[in-house]
Structures are given as structure tokens and as C-alpha cells.
């Protein structure tokens, strides 16, 4: 029994929570709002979301939050510890680490979003097609997926970057190439369950084409699993990008990529710990944020828990 939560709620809230929506838009928005409320009820998910939002804001407002160029060197200010003037200290070339971390957030976010945008649709398309049609198509697609899955992610990314050359764009491509298989698997598994459902049978009986069924009926239901998976995977993607950066194969200096910063700070780890540790902490915090958000999203989106 769905009871309306707030009969006396302010105008727009009552509109969203209405028992009998009057239009498609109202129904859609109302459903999203309820999901939002569920997410809010989970404190850890809120923490995760706060971190992710902070990262987004950091990236968008980097020039405002850390004015000045992240490339500006001052060799007289090398390796200074954190102070009022340099909040996170300076690195081996006298660059302000705080500024580099904030601007580095943009790099991280770019890599992560680009990978997600490539990987999720590709995985979804391949997985649902394989699951729905079965037979030879399924075998071919899944064995291809298996081949990609067989390689450890970082090693395969290394191989691609080595072949394509270092740089952010190639790092993104390399990571995307290694990250898509699990999404295909997840989408396929969901599709296999859904394929025999009565509501799919019903739309088949209406004469819908397979393409229509896949895009409008099957994929929306697989979307939740994929979104959850992507969010949880973000941490892994960040770490892989950082790993590539650490090995000098991702973003090239002087771009302030966090992994590259950790790498170049290695030699100073004992005496000037801040150079490597602070970017490391940034990686950790952002990965944690995405993980928590992903867990929270799973509680909201997982149909089995609805």
C-alpha cells in the first residue's frame, strides 16, 4: 500500500508525490523524486555524494578556488612543508601542491567521465544483444568479452598505451578498452532474466521489432545495474589512470595528474612526505566517495530491494 507521505506538503512536493499523476512528466519526475528521497535516507551515500559533488565543483571552479597557474615554478620555494602560504606545501619544482591538486581534479574527472561515457553504452549494447538473441551472436560476443576479461586491467591498459603512445586521450581509450567487459556481462545476465518475462512476451505479441524491445523495454531495466556498476567502478578507473600516470604513461608532465604527482613525489617520501601523500589522499578520498555513492545508488535502484 503506497501511502502519500505528506498530505500537507508544500505545492511542488505534493505535486511530485501525487497518487494520481496527470501527465507523463509528472509521473516520471515523481518517481525520480522518490528515488532521491531514498538516497537521502542513507547517510553513507550522502557522504559519497558530497564527495563526488565536491569533486565536480572543484573541477568547474578550479581557477576560482586555486587561482594562479598550476605550472608556475619557483625553484627558490622547493619542497616547502604545508604552511599558511602554501596549504599543501610545494613540490620539487616549487609548484604549489594545493593548486596542482585542485586543477588535477579536472584531469581525473575528465578521464573518469570519458571512460564512463564510452564504456557503459558499449557494454549495455553488447550485453543486451547477446542476452536477447542468444545463439551464435551470444557466443561470438561473449567469447570476445571473455578475451578482454582474461587480461589484468592495468597490464592490458599498459599494452595499449605502449602501442598508442602516452597521453590523456590514449590513456582514456586504453582504460575504456579494458573496462567494458563487466558491463556486457552484467547487462547480459539481466537480459537473460528479463527475456522470459510476461511483459516482454506481451510486447512481442504486439508485433514490436527486436530493436524496439531491446532499446525501449530491456535496456531501461539493465540501466540500473550498469549505473551502479559504473559508479562502483569509478574508483578502479581512477586508480588505473593514476597507475598509468604513476608509470609515466598517462597524463604527461607538467599536467597535474594525481597519479603522476604521486610518482614524482616518491623520491622525497621520507623527508618531504606531503609531495606524494597529499595527491595520494586525494585519490583515496575520491575513490571512497564513488564507492559510497555506488552503494547508495544500489539501494535505491536495485529493483529487488524496492
Amino acid at each position: 500500500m503506497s501511502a502519500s507521505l505528506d498530505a500537507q506538503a508544500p505545492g511542488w512536493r505534493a505535486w511530485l508525490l501525487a497518487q494520481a499523476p496527470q501527465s507523463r512528466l509528472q509521473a516520471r519526475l515523481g518517481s525520480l523524486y522518490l528515488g532521491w528521497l531514498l538516497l537521502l535516507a542513507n547517510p553513507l551515500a550522502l557522504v559519497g555524494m558530497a564527495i563526488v559533488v565536491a569533486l565536480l565543483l572543484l573541477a568547474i571552479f578550479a581557477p576560482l578556488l586555486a587561482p594562479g597557474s598550476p605550472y608556475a615554478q619557483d625553484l627558490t620555494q622547493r619542497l616547502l612543508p604545508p604552511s599558511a602560504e602554501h596549504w599543501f606545501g610545494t613540490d620539487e619544482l616549487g609548484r604549489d601542491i594545493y593548486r596542482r591538486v585542485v586543477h588535477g581534479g579536472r584531469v581525473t574527472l575528465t578521464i573518469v567521465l570519458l571512460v564512463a561515457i564510452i564504456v557503459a553504452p558499449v557494454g549495455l549494447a553488447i550485453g543486451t544483444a547477446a542476452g536477447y538473441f542468444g545463439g551464435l551472436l551470444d557466443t561470438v560476443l561473449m567469447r570476445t568479452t571473455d578475451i578482454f576479461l582474461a587480461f589484468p586491467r592495468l597490464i592490458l591498459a599498459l599494452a595499449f598505451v605502449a602501442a598508442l603512445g602516452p597521453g590523456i586521450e590514449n590513456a582514456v581509450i586504453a582504460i575504456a578498452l579494458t573496462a567494458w567487459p563487466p558491463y556486457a556481462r552484467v547487462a547480459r545476465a539481466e537480459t537473460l532474466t528479463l527475456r522470459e518475462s510476461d511483459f516482454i512476451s506481451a510486447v512481442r505479441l504486439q508485433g514490436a521489432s527486436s530493436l524496439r524491445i531491446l532499446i525501449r523495454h530491456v535496456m531501461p531495466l539493465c540501466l540500473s545495474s550498469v549505473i551502479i556498476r559504473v559508479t562502483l567502478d569509478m574508483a578502479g578507473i581512477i586508480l588505473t589512470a593514476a597507475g598509468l600516470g604513476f608509470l609515466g604513461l598517462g597524463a604527461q608532465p607538467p599536467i597535474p595528474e594525481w597519479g603522476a604527482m604521486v610518482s614524482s613525489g616518491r623520491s622525497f617520501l621520507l623527508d618531504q612526505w606531503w609531495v606524494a601523500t597529499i595527491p595520494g589522499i586525494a585519490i583515496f578520498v575520491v575513490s571512497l566517495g564513488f564507492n559510497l555513492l555506488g552503494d547508495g545508488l544500489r539501494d535505491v535502484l536495485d529493483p529487488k530491494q524496492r
Partner: protein
Amino acid sequence: MTETRPILSVRGLSVVFGSGAEAVEAVRQLDFHVAEGEWYGLVGESGSGKSTVLRAVSGLLLHWSGAIEVAGQSQAPRRSRAFHKLVQMVFQDPYASLHPRHTVDRALSEPLAIHRMESADRRIERALIDVGLDSSFRYRFPHQLSGGQRQRVAIARALILEPRILLLDEPTSALDVSVQAEILNLLRRLRREHGLTAVLVSHNLAVVAHMCERLGVMQNGEMVEELTVEQLRAAAPQHPYTRELLSASAGYDRRMAAELAETA
């Protein structure tokens, strides 16, 4: 009985699942015919093959042998779009037959979009009124509806394409007793108003007797008897299995059950 051609004609229908040593004959050489405007019942228990027959007739099942003729046209396993406008199906489980993320409006507009039918808005409103739901239901999601309401939506969805033949797979088995009566009454009214022909599959003899004129009794994939509802009511079934079903539908009888238990 007029001599006009039956609107649905099934001859020698056979369905085999699996292959080799594990092959299971779900349906064996089934024959039955349904005249236009008639409601035909298929009665049987689990494993009898009755639902498989519906899936073959509807076009959901592709691997069958025999002949299926609808409105004078012989049907191949893959059906045409025109066929789907002619024959529609209502499923058993109201909790599984509606897409969980689509509103009622979407569920009803989809078939109209596929068949490019006009005045979708008006048709949707009329379909809802036809099944006894008012417009406040139009933009709700399935999880906001009760079992009976969902089944009404499923019936509206089946009828929105204006089919001539309805296939009903245990339409009230998953519903409460009091809701069952409402849905059965609704189906009878819609039958009168739209002149529908139907095949009703059920394990419940009382429901079949209430809704249909003739029925076929299936056991282990075969039709063991075909009779009219009058014959059933006169307690004149010939086949022992039919008699068993009839007496079981009357409730528990200590004496009869004791005999059955002995043979368990």
C-alpha cells in the same frame, strides 16, 4: 451449429522441448476448433500442456509442428504484424505482465505506436473506461496498483488493438476470490460489447464452466475429452480424468479422497 469456418483451427499440433534422450512431448497431436464468437476452454493441470498450446497459437513459441489457421489464414511460426492485431493475449500473473518502469499510459500507447494507429489519446482514455478504471490511473506505475487493477490494465492493453480473438492464460488464478468475480464479469461484458472470440486456459473447472460454451480437457499433452459445458453440468463426462477433475472441483470428499490416496 452453423457450417461457417471456425475462426481458429488447430490441427495436429505437437510441441517437443529438448532433444534426444531428454526430449519431452509437451503437446501431442492436438486438434480443436473455435467458432467465431465462441469461448473455448482448455482445462488441465500442470504439465498438461495447455499453456504451451496458447504460446504456440499466439506466436510466442516458434518450434511446433502441425497446422494453425486463424481467420482462414494458415500461420507460419513467425507471425505478421497483422496477426498481432487480430490475436491478443492476457497473462496469468498481473505482477509480471506489466513493465515495471512504464506507466499505464505507456503500456497502452506502445501497441498503438507499433501499429501506427491514430487518435492514441482518445483510444487510451476509452480503453481505461472500458475496463472500469478512471483517468486517474493513467499515469501510475504498476507498483502503485493492486492485482485486480493491474489485470484490468493488462486486459485494456490486449483490447486496445481491437483484436477479434483473445487468448486468456489463467487470467484470475493469481487474484483474490472477490477480485476474480469482478474480472470475470468484466470479461463477459467486454465479450458482449466487442463480440470477442476467446480461448480460456484454466485449471479451474468452475471458471471455465462460467465463461465458456465448450471445453477441452488436457492431460499429459493430449486432449482426452472435448465436451460442452452443458454436458459437464449434467455430470456426463466420459473420460475418467474429466470426472476426477469435476469431483475435485466440488471440494474435499473423505470417501473419494481415500480411494485416491490408496493409489498414490
